């Protein structure tokens, strides 16, 4: 069997396209579980912060601790299933650095109000989702931009119900995004 260079290039292009779709599919499968986990935690974190504002700091520390532990569990499950470590200590280090940088500017230097913190953290996280989505897949761009837009809308127009709004759009948005990824 003999083919020319153009046919060979076309075959290699088909191979790369399929391989890219498989990688994206695997990533969506893993990421969807993470989104569902964090969506549920953020939903309850916002609802609890609304009803017990003095405890908000502790609530969010607990949300992050449970989230990291849950992410490790999902990573271990994925490793058992696929043989590839998706969530490891390097991911935790990246997450801690990301939180530390946000805390430095919003609390250490910025002295944000609780409402400003409520809009800063989700939009800060969603910026990463959006940027990562440029490489990984359009679903992340849609989730990142969608939640950012709804967060800013809530900051501007939703009065004392802001945390409940955030429970719905941030927690609910991640949860729906995760479920959508699993379905697709």
């Amino acid at each position, binding site marked *: *069997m*003999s*083919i*020319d*260079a153009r046919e*060979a*290039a076309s*075959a*290699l292009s*088909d*191979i790369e396209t*399929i*391989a890219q*779709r*498989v*990688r994206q*599919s*695997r990533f969506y499968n893993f990421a969807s579980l993470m989104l569902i986990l964090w969506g549920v935690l953020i939903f309850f974190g916002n609802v609890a912060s609304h009803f017990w504002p003095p405890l908000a700091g502790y609530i969010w520390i607990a949300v992050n601790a449970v989230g990291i532990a849950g992410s490790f569990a999902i990573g271990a499950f994925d490793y058992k299933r*696929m*043989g*590839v470590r998706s969530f490891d200590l390097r991911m935790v280090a990246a997450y801690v650095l990301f939180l530390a940088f946000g805390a430095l500017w919003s609390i250490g230097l910025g002295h944000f109000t609780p409402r400003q913190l409520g809009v800063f953290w989700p939009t800060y996280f969603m910026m990463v989702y959006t940027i990562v989505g440029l490489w990984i897949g359009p679903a992340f761009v849609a989730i990142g931009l969608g939640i950012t837009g709804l967060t800013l809308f809530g900051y501007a127009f939703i009065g004392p119900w802001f945390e409940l709004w955030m429970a719905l759009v941030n927690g609910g948005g991640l949860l729906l995004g995760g479920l959508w990824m699993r379905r697709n």
Partner: protein
Amino acid sequence: MAELDEIIHQPLRLKIMAALNALPAATGLDFTRLKKLTGATDGNLGAHIETLAKAGYVTVAKAFVGKKPQTTVTATAAGRGAFARHVATLREIIAASAPEAD
């Protein structure tokens, strides 16, 4: 130059092998996922998987997940090797046609 693998070179079989090779060794794809990835019909996909299985390039495992039957297709070591050689040959064809630099 090495010969192209005639079994793998068929467009749908190439897609199947490309999809399975993008996974870690010994990890398979279920039939439904493979159908979605390749855009093939049930009958066509089934026939080409059978051809690959007869060549020893993939294994097919059938099981029940709950009450639903699930068919999982996995590339064998021989299949991965054949696919790697096929890709190398495709690259050689492209390299051989490129004008030589001075």
